[in-house]
């Protein structure tokens, strides 16, 4: 492809802003200046779906009503571990109003049914005329179980002789054996899997022994976090209408493409026979990337009944079966010299994602600070509990909770301000600016731990995070301009709720010299071009360059038609405020509207995807460059008599490349901070170890934060230009959530002079830490 050179802004305004030359493909637009010089991008633009959402006219998946639609409910196992001897659905089938019953069976040579491995595992489903009837029918299904021993507690599961989640030997792994050493030094077997010793950043580096021998201080600690469920406002679910020519799926999903491909694979259908629609989305936080079990179930019921089937989960099902952030028992041994230089980081972690894998926490310790000697061993502990799922910066939130407290502890050992220590050991240029600007806004003035007096003690803390910048090249956008002057953007990308729909309008409007409200955005439908799932905070960086590129191409098409009318060359034309004009001769101009009216066809359109990152990728296997920094500061007050902690305020300093919509970025940071505070103080999945059930599978005793739990949140946003794409923008959803719990934990320590080492920090654990509880 032909390329050309362009000069791009590069660096951080107010710090080191400069320029850089990049070679870019000829079909991508010239560099944008920094946000100050743009009209629509980088501004506070109201969400283009705000009115629909607040007035209730926005239709979410559970609102979908189709002619003849049935309502479905799934039967879930009420024991944590069992073989299923029989499932008798005859009574359910005879129940008046029931239209279809489906039982999950295994086509494997063994048992007819898969074993139950956690309480809440779906077994069967019923579609009926109403949800009440479906629930009644589900209760009539008779299941005969042969129950088996089970294990819920992570540390119990690590012991030799614990009931096994997977019976077959776990066997030799590519990167380790089946026997791991547990956090306390004892050997574990069976339910342990690992260790994982590498990430995309590579594996172990340097020489740990050497590193520790060079250290003046060595910290050796274990940090623990709880299992955290996602609790999106909208639960998982689908409405599926399986017609002979097409299966139409309305899904609450973070990935229209993922659901389409999953169902196509499950039913062996061509992709063009499955259409997935998600126009509005009530949150997912990482748990909504696949069709789940409910997708195939709803499809089976639709096929059997010949009717559309609604299958949305209830809150209890959501908690027990649709994902969680695994817990962690996170061991860190860190060596440092007197001047703060880190000499060695040894990390070992165990965590449970229930019956699934994915409980590692190691990447942040590997990547946040410069340390020549590093090793990690991350073990999954399998337990008879619901499967984990990606959860807003997977592994990093648990990892940062440990690492950033450890760094705080080292600062303490060295009698240094923890912010000063980070200045010494953190190589990131953007976090340097985040620390400076964040500390100023917060009013950071270090005071020794436990130095506040009185019953209510205040404390301050800081923590940092990093999140990789990723993009997904399978991201395509189509831009159409109609002869009536209207503009439409189309992509299969879904808006998880962060405002993707609005930034697409902004980017296209900026390129076409229009206003954001002039642009109609149609997304969340697989009949439009493919786009990535909303995960990894990749959507903004992946989808906005194609949107700008497509708008640029369609603009060129329009210029080609307009140029002869204005007696000039297309290359001499530009757009501004709804006008197409000659770059040098102000008399040669035409309104965009008139130009479109005079087109030879009723519409013109262009599709575009995006090139590799300008300047190339950092990772040879693709798709990564740089990091998205955050530094968060917390102030807490602790009632030393009741153990009650209140997070008073958080200053969250963040970068996300070129900010596209300030209001929406702030909204993401607010959400990330609130979830972080909640993780630090409130939310925790409570399992009964003796019966294997989750005890707080609701939003009553699963403690979510409400208004009084939410601190004042002060956001410091730093623009950082890296000239990597035509928009140079990145997401912020995940970075916003990583550092908060660690900052709060450090602030609690600073307040009371005692560190807790475990979240959530509750009145019970605070009073215990203060030695006020006799056991």
């Amino acid at each position, binding site marked *: 492809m032909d390329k050309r050179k362009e000069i791009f802004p590069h660096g951080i305004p107010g710090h080191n802003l400069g320029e850089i030359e990049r070679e870019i493909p000829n079909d991508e637009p010239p560099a944008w200046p920094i946000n100050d010089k743009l009209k629509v991008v980088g501004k506070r633009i109201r969400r283009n779906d705000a009115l629909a959402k607040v007035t209730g006219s926005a239709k979410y998946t559970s609102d979908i009503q189709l002619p003849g639609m049935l309502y479905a409910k799934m039967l879930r196992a009420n024991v944590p571990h069992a073989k299923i001897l029989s499932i008798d659905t005859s009574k359910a089938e005879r129940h008046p109003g029931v239209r279809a019953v489906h039982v999950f069976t295994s086509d494997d040579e063994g048992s007819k049914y898969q074993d139950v491995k956690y309480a809440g595992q779906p077994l069967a489903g019923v579609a009926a005329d109403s949800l009440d009837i479906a629930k009644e029918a589900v209760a009539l299904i008779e299941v005969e179980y042969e129950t088996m021993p089970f294990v819920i507690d992570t540390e119990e599961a690590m012991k030799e002789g614990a009931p096994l989640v997977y019976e077959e030997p776990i066997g030799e792994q590519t990167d380790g054996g089946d026997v791991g050493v547990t956090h306390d030094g004892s050997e574990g077997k069976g339910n342990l899997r690992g260790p994982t010793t590498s990430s995309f950043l590579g594996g172990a580096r340097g020489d740990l022994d050497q590193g520790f021998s060079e250290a003046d201080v060595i910290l050796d600690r274990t940090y623990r976090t709880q299992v955290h469920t996602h609790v999106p406002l909208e639960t998982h679910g689908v409405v599926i209408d399986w017609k002979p020519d097409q299966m139409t799926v309305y899904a609450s999903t973070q990935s229209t493409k993922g659901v389409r491909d999953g169902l196509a694979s499950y039913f062996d259908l061509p992709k063009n026979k499955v259409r997935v629609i998600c126009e509005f989305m009530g949150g997912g936080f990482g748990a909504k990337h696949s069709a789940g079990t409910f997708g195939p179930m709803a499809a089976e019921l639709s096929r059997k009944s010949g009717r559309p089937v609604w299958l949305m989960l209830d809150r209890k099902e959501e908690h027990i079966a649709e994902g969680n952030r695994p817990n962690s028992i996170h061991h860190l041994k860190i060596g440092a010299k007197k001047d703060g230089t880190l000499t060695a980081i040894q990390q070992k972690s165990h965590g449970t994602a229930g019956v699934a894998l994915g409980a590692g926490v190691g990447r942040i310790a590997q990547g946040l600070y410069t340390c020549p000697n590093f090793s990690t061993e991350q073990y999954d502990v399998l337990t008879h509990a619901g499967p984990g799922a990606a959860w807003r910066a997977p592994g990093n939130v648990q990892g940062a909770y440990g690492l950033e407290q450890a760094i705080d502890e080292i600062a303490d050992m060295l009698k240094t301000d923890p912010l000063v220590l980070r200045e010494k050991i953190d190589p990131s240029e953007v976090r340097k600016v985040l620390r400076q600007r964040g500390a100023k806004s917060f009013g950071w003035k270090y005071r020794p731990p436990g130095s506040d007096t009185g019953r209510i003690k205040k404390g301050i803390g800081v923590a940092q995070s990093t999140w990789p910048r990723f993009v997904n090249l399978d991201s395509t956008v189509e831009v159409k301009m109609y002869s009536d002057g209207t503009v439409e953007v189309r992509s299969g990308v879904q808006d998880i709720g962060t405002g993707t729909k609005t930034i697409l309008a902004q980017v296209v409007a900026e390129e076409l010299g229009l206003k954001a409200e002039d642009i109609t955005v149609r997304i969340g439908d697989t009949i439009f071009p493919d786009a990535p799932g909303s995960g990894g905070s990749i959507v903004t960086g992946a989808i906005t360059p194609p949107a700008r590129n497509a708008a640029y191409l369609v603009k060129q098409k329009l210029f080609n038609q307009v140029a002869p009318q204005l007696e000039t060359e297309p290359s001499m034309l530009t757009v501004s405020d709804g006008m197409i004009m000659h770059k040098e001769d102000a008399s040669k101009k035409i309104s965009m509207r008139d130009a479109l009216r005079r087109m030879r066809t009723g519409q013109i359109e262009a599709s575009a995807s995006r090139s590799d990152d300008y300047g190339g990728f950092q990772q040879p296997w693709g798709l990564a460059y740089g990091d998205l920094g955050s530094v968060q500061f917390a102030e807490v007050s602790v009632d030393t008599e009741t*153990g009650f902690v209140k997070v008073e305020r958080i200053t969250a300093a963040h970068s996300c490349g070129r900010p596209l919509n300030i209001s929406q970025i702030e909204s993401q940071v607010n959400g990330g901070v609130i979830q972080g505070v909640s993780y630090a103080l409130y939310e925790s999945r409570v399992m009964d170890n003796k019966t294997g059930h989750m005890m707080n599978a609701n939003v009553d*005793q699963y403690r979510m934060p409400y208004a009084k739990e939410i601190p004042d949140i002060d956001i410091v946003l730093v623009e950082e230009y890296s000239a990597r794409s035509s928009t140079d923008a990145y997401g912020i959803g995940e970075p916003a959530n990583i550092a908060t719990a660690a900052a709060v934990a450090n602030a609690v320590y600073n307040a009371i002079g005692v560190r807790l080492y475990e979240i959530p920090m509750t009145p019970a654990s605070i009073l215990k830490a203060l030695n006020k509880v006799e056991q």
Partner: protein
Amino acid sequence: MNRFKWYEAKSVEDALEQVNSTVSNEVASRTGNAAVFKAGGTDLLDLMKEGLVEPKTIVHIGNIPGMREITADLDESVRIGANVTLAEIEEHAYIRDRYLALHQAVASAATPQLRNMATIGGNLAQRTRCWYFRSIDHKCLRKGGDTCFARRGENENHAIMNNGTCVSVHASSVSTALMAFDAEVIITDGKGEEKRVPMEEFFVSPGEDATTENILRANEIITGVYLPPVKDSRKSYYIKQGPRKSYDWSIADVAVVMEMQGSKCTEARVVLGAAAPTPLRSRPAERTLTGKQVSASVAVEAATAAMERARPLSQNAYKIPLFEAIIREAIMEIV
């Protein structure tokens, strides 16, 4: 939730004719044929959503005339109709002025939205929030089973006193304050006869019968709450500690009512909520306060006395220092 018939009761007598069971009976025996009362519905509907009770008929008492009034008698006693909402009590100036601890307890219960729906009668009759009781998968003592799962299970929110059988705590933190004012529950039976039952006699300990938390029978209905008159010298304070401030169930709450002559306490009520399966008067604390000039050290003594009989479970020993802190604080807020 099961499908049910709805009956709009026109009078107390009409309502009593329609019902044939109590929610408690139905949770334990599950006849599937029950007709039960609903006022605000904030507890009943939760129980129904969990499948713990599946009434055939719901007898709605929320619109019965005359049950939603707060009236003061000539002797300055107060009668709160059973259908008065918590929000209405919260906003009532006379109650706030005379019965501060009750005002505080009501204002800290649940959320504004729930207080708009929840009635005082329903609040007294609600079932425990013990998560084992609320789970369809655990047939515990309170549901007619033979196990208290919380005793050796997840019991951080549970009872530290009187926890020899079921270890749940009562969900009504409003009762903590009512008991401290020597309030009485007004109960009407099928014959239209009214009786007044002191709060301590209204609640049933699980040792007597774990399947119910109060004395109500199927032919009885709470029609109101009686508050004895208080003089200006009767001072009160209430503190509830929940894990969250916006909305949560109490993990420890206390109401202190003292008759004060200057700084001397001549009579005291100290009632603990979320300490035991029923709201619990702490007579050791009351004895410590009575007849004394109340000072910080007396407050400490009373708080310590209140916790003398505490026998915490595996996860709730933290409640002892927590109760001591809020008892001290409540006492000192009065003097």
